[in-house]
Every structure is written in structure tokens, then in C-alpha cells.
């Protein structure tokens, strides 16, 4: 079974250092998964072309076109890499909007590499102060290594170099993805709307639940 990786990047310029980092991470994850004997497919989702569709989604409540396709890609991804530029000491609004419009439960248990770019290394704690809490709320599993790249990192080659951090994060994600037999160690904890359509809860059970009986589904 092919392991599906979706790399989401929220850079605004073309080309952007955010996309540059996303490419590095995508390649590294692909290499790390292949090294474990698995086939892998990496799909890149740039949020910039989806900006209007994301604003429309906020106002109408449903996705259209390429945004709908991007959300479907995330729904079927085994693992994610997410990369944002730092804006005002946090992830960008565009980046956050994409995760705001995902239906609850979509990322439950999903392994994720968080990454960010900025002009200066002074912003590097954004990974731990902003991105990790966001993905904890979304019940994703964030790998231990986050990757932060300041402009200067794209020229440095010493021991703490960007490539080493990228490799480490990619290896951690590949390890979490397991042997390819199924997505990950941690099962989704919530039923999504799509789950509800695929396997509707029988009405007798809804009646029991309404009266406060919290019997777990098989």
C-alpha cells in the first residue's frame, strides 16, 4: 500500500522560502518512508491559490474546487507536513484558516511534522508556542522534532544545519507511520460526518444515547 503524504505550505511569495522548506521536508519524508521499504506518494498543497476559496468557505460553510480537492487529500493522507511563515509571532492567518475549515475529527491521530520559516531565528519558539498547541487541539500526533528555518539557515552547513533537522523530523514521521499496514499507532477518536454517512448509527442506539446511556459503539 502506498503511503500518502500531504505537504501543506502557506508561503505567500512565489517562490517562497516556506515552499523551499516544504520541498525539502517532502523529499526527506519520501526518502525516509522508502528507506523502510514502503512506497510513497507526496502531494503538495499550496494555500496561496486557495486564499479566495478559503475566505468563501468561512462565509458559506462549504469548500469548492481546488480547496475541496485539497481537503479530500488531507482526509486520505497517512501523514502530514505543515509549513507556515511566521506572521506577528504566530502562524499566518491563511495557514490557520485552512485548519479552521476542516471538519472536526479529520486530523485525529494523524502524524504531523510542524515547520515554520521567518526572517530571523528569534521566532523559532513559534513551533512550540503556536503550532504544537494547534495540532494538539486537532488531536494530531506531532513528531518530536519541529523544523524552523530562518533566512540564515538556508546558507548554514554546520552541525545544527537545516538539512539535519529536516532528516530527523522526516525519520520520526516515517517511524510513526509504521509498516504501512494501516495509518498509524493512534486510531481516530471521533466519528466524522463522512463516517456517519458510511455507517449510520442505528436509531435504537440514538434513542439509548439520548437518554444518557453511554454504551460504546462496537
Amino acid at each position, binding site marked *: 500500500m502506498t503511503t500518502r503524504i500531504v505537504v501543506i505550505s502557506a508561503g505567500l511569495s512565489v517562490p517562497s522560502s516556506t515552499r523551499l522548506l516544504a520541498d525539502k521536508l517532502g523529499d526527506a519524508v519520501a526518502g525516509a518512508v522508502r528507506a523502510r521499504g514502503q512506497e510513497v506518494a507526496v502531494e503538495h498543497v499550496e494555500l496561496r491559490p486557495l486564499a479566495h476559496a478559503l475566505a468563501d468557505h468561512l462565509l458559506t460553510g462549504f469548500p469548492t474546487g481546488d480547496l475541496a480537492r485539497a481537503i479530500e487529500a488531507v482526509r486520505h493522507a497517512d501523514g502530514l507536513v505543515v509549513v507556515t511563515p511566521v506572521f506577528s509571532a504566530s502562524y499566518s492567518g491563511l495557514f490557520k484558516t485552512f485548519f479552521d475549515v476542516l471538519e472536526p475529527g479529520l486530523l485525529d491521530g494523524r502524524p504531523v511534522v510542524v515547520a515554520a520559516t521567518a526572517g530571523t531565528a528569534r521566532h523559532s519558539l513559534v513551533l512550540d508556542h503556536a503550532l504544537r498547541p494547534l495540532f494538539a487541539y486537532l488531536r494530531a500526533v506531532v513528531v518530536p522534532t519541529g523544523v524552523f528555518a530562518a533566512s540564515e539557515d538556508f546558507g548554514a552547513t554546520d552541525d545544527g544545519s537545516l538539512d539535519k533537522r529536516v532528516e530527523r523530523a522526516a525519520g520520526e514521521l516515517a517511524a510513526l507511520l509504521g509498516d504501512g499496514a494501516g495509518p498509524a499507532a493512534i486510531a481516530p477518536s471521533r466519528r466524522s460526518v463522512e463516517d456517519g454517512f458510511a455507517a449510520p448509527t442505528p436509531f435504537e442506539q440514538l*434513542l439509548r444515547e439520548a437518554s444518557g446511556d453511554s454504551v460504546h459503539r462496537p
Partner: protein
Amino acid sequence: MQIGIFTVGDVTTDPTTGQTPSEYERIKATVAIAKKADEIGLDVFATGEHHNPPFVASNPTATLAYIGAQTENIILSTATTLITTTDPVLIAEDYAKLQHLTDGRNDLMLGRGNTGPVYPWFGKDIRQGINLAVENYALLRRLWSEDVVDWEGRFRTPLQGYTSTPRPLDGIAPFVWHGSIRSPEIAEQAAYYGDGFFHNHIFWPAAHAAQMVNLYRERFEHYGHGRADQAIVGLGGQIFMHRNSQEAVRRFRPYFDNAPVYGHGPSLEDFSEHTPLTVGSPQQVLERTLSFREYAGHYQRQLFLVDHAGLPLKTVLEQLDLLGEILPDLRKGFAEGRPAHVPDAPTHASLIAAAGGAKDVTVHAEDTMTGTTDRAPEAEEVSA
């Protein structure tokens, strides 16, 4: 096939004039729109229930009873009656009363409501929305079908020896539709009871409606109420017409661009592509509406939204004139290719016929102190 209109009763500034109707004007306009709908031969008028500005759609049964007194044939319904925050004991009374006042010319559509603060205002918890809909409706059914109810549940005070009055007219409870945009549990509920299922349809991509309707149809068959294509389905729709289609777009665009729900978002053209919104000539509205069957199957009720976003009453009445003109073609189109085994939406008359006739089910109280009764001799049954 029933064809009608539904309204949410929004008080919205007309973006082309800057004028905002008063509550009085909007409420009276709602009545005028309903009377016009009856005049042009529409089958259904439905009004929403909201408990916050900018809506005037609280207390739908008062509105419907008032309209019922001034109309002849039109079925009076809701879009929707809030089954979550309204006490089911009051729903049982109010809609049975409305039956008696309008000679059975009403049904109702249940919904959960999407305004967060309404739940706490009525002492409820929005996170219990599904559970409230399930428990409250189960009680509502018992209040209509059983003369004396002993009941205990989770969300309201218990009932001991309670009789809801008046009893349903002719012993037949109002037909119930369940409305939901995206909750499979509500499609399941409608299917379980063999009730109708209505998808709001407007403001949402066709795929949402198709997914919900198909689930409801499958589960309707699963629960043994008939074949999937015999389930009772209703859809919304949103239209604006002019004989010249480009003029329709030109006139509706300022209302679209500033509409409370979707305004300042996608273009009218994009939104028309993704949702049932149809702005154009009467012929275009006719063709688009008939195309809903391609993903929803042959269905029973089509309701149009014609009066929101600040459209003035005069414009709405003109829209209804145009709708009246295409009504015969709509009916003809819906009848084409419709298999004989696909039923019409139940009405009071059809439900009486299915029950084998009307019954007076008045519950007569007896005075246990004196042993006297107000029960008339031999008043058990009347003919249909």
C-alpha cells in the same frame, strides 16, 4: 407534487434603497406573501422559527393560524419548528390546535436550530442538540398518539397522567418532516419513523443534499416503510426571475452581494454554480428546478425562498406572479417519468383515508367527586 415557498422572516435592509422594514411591516408582509401564494395556487407556505433579531419568525403557530383564517387551500407548515429548545408538550398542543383551527391544513418540519445562544436562553445545551431532537420527538409522538401519557426522560420534567389537548384533529397527528443539512442522525430519525425528510438545499452544494437524501431513502427502506424511492423527500430552492435573464441577474445582484448569509463572499455566478440558487428567466428556473430530480430522485415537496435579503414586498409579489406562470409547467415536468408507485406527500385527507376514516378522539374529563361527565352519549365516531 407539492410546490410552495418558505421564509425565515428576516428583517433586512434593502441594499438598493437603504430602507429597513419595521417588525410590523415585515410581519404583515409575511402574511401578504402567504395569501398571494394561496392565490396563485401554491401548495405550501412554511415559516421558520427564530428567537433573535433580525428575525420576526418567533411563534410560528400564531402566524400560521392567522394566515389560515385568510386562505383557502394552502398547506401551512414550518421551516423549521425547533424540536431542541421548544418544549415538546407545547409543540403537541400548538400544532394540534392549529389543525382544529385550519381544518387539518397544516403539517410541520422539525429542525434543531443553528443559533448558539438560543439553547441557553431556553435552558438547553447545544452540545445535546441531537439527543434533544431524539428524546423530544419521541415524547411528541406519544403525546399525539396516546391519550394519557406517563413519561420520564432526561431533558424535561416528568409527566404523570398527562393528556395533551386538543387531541389531534380526526385522530390524525400532523404529518412531520425532519429538516437537516448535514446530520446523518436526523436522516436516520426521519427514516426510522417513516416521516418526511426535508433538505434545506439552498446555500449548500447539491452534493450535501444528495448525500442526506440518499441516506434517508436507504434507511427508510431498511426500516420497512417502503422502497427507497417511496420515501417522502422535500427540497428547498432559491430563485429570482425576470423575463430577461440578464435583467434578473442585474436586479438581484445587489441583494445577493449583501445578503446576510452568503454576502460579500463568492460571486453570484459561482454561488449559482455550486448551490441551487437560480437567477434568470422563468424558463431557466423551470429547467433548473426539474433537474434536482437527477440527484434527489422523484420527490414530494419543493419549497422556494423568495423573500429574503431585503427584497421589498412588491418585488416578492412580482416574483410570485412569475412563479404562478410557470407553475403548470413545473407540475407537468415533475409528473413526467414519475413512476406510479412513488407516493405524493401525505396530507390530512390522505392520512385519514389511510387510517380508515376520521375519529373524534376528544378526551372527556370525568368529575371523580360527583361522578358526572361531559361526555356526550354515542359521540365516539364521526364519519370522514
